[in-house]
């Protein structure tokens, strides 16, 4: 049953028709949000908030103007923006991606097979995610829709309410910004390693 039919059912009073909508879109919404916020926990909380907000405002959804999914991702984007605004006003904690750190502390049998490769992959994931968070919101949203949600350019344009050309530019500039951020981070890491080595040498003396 198409999304819009389910929406019509809900507006006629059948609130149970919302369940298939949640089931259908939860993975996409959580993943999109995961690309724009700090942790899995935040992504899940915001995704739930997105669905609840969508339900309570369902009466204002106009199927002639947009697809339900486009409307839903717009709500999710607004939720992420509000969340990031709040986060910016709070003092930043040093503990980045705490849930992922925890995940890595758990014993992972796959890692024992080829320890270096797995750790490198995880570290790389974290580096890319940290860099993503440093990119401006519009670029990050476009990148997240593209690489976490695997949307086509046109779909991204509809969701973000910008032109197709604009989306291409946002994604291109976003990648360039990511490349710079990753370069900076690599530079910082190399410097800190050198300092550590220097420190040890000092201790030896």
């Amino acid at each position: 049953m198409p999304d819009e039919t389910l929406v019509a059912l809900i507006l006629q009073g059948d609130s149970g028709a919302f369940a298939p909508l949640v089931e259908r879109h939860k993975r996409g919404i959580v993943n999109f949000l995961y690309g724009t916020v700090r942790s899995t926990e935040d992504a899940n909380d915001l995704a739930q908030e997105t669905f609840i907000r969508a339900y309570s405002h369902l009466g204002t959804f106009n199927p002639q103007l947009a697809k339900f999914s486009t409307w839903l991702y717009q709500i999710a984007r607004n939720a992420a923006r509000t969340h990031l605004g709040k986060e910016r006003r709070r003092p930043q904690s040093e503990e980045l991606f705490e849930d992922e750190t925890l995940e890595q502390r758990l014993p992972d049998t796959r890692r024992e097979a080829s320890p270096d490769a797995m750790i490198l992959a995880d570290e790389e994931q974290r580096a890319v995610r940290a860099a993503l968070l440093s990119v401006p919101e519009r670029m990050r949203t476009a990148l997240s829709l593209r690489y976490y949600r695997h949307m086509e350019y046109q779909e991204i344009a509809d969701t973000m309410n910008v032109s197709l050309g604009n989306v291409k530019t946002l994604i291109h500039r976003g990648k360039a910004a990511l490349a710079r951020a990753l370069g900076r981070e690599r530079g910082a890491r190399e410097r800190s390693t050198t300092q550590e080595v220097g420190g040890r040498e000092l201790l030896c003396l």
Partner: protein
Amino acid sequence: MNCSACEARLAAYLDGELSARDAQAIEAHMNSCASCRVLVNDLRAVEIKLQGLRGVEPRPGFDVAVMAAIAALPVPKPARLRLRWFVAYVAAAWAVLITLTVARVIDWQHAFAAVAIELGKVAAAGSTVLGVGLRLHLTTFVGAGIGIEMLVLLVGAFALRRFYPQMRGWFAGAPA
């Protein structure tokens, strides 16, 4: 080709959207320019990293939590406010104002009162337009609403043209 021309076309080049000739021009430039070569390599590396990003699964009990939360909410109703009601509201407001003017209930000739009413009306109309538009997510219709309001304003201004010669007096605050 210089670097800025190369950079401008890089996105299309990497997406494979350039013609063979344009792509060759980019490649020729990259052969001679180390910084553009580094840039392209960086962008390619980022693309690979982005494609290798691992997604996440929604937490267990996600659906249950959402459905429990919405069970406590009232069942949503279709928004009943429609554009024609808004148009009717604007027309009715103007009809009332014009009637009151013609019946000389409103003493328009007192300058400050007239200006205050005008400002109040514009503000009320503006907030109504915005309110309706935002509530219904009808950004296109917000423009239409403002257009209609301006049209009605023009018609009103035309209808009230016989007062124009007296206007100088109103703004001086003196009765005509």
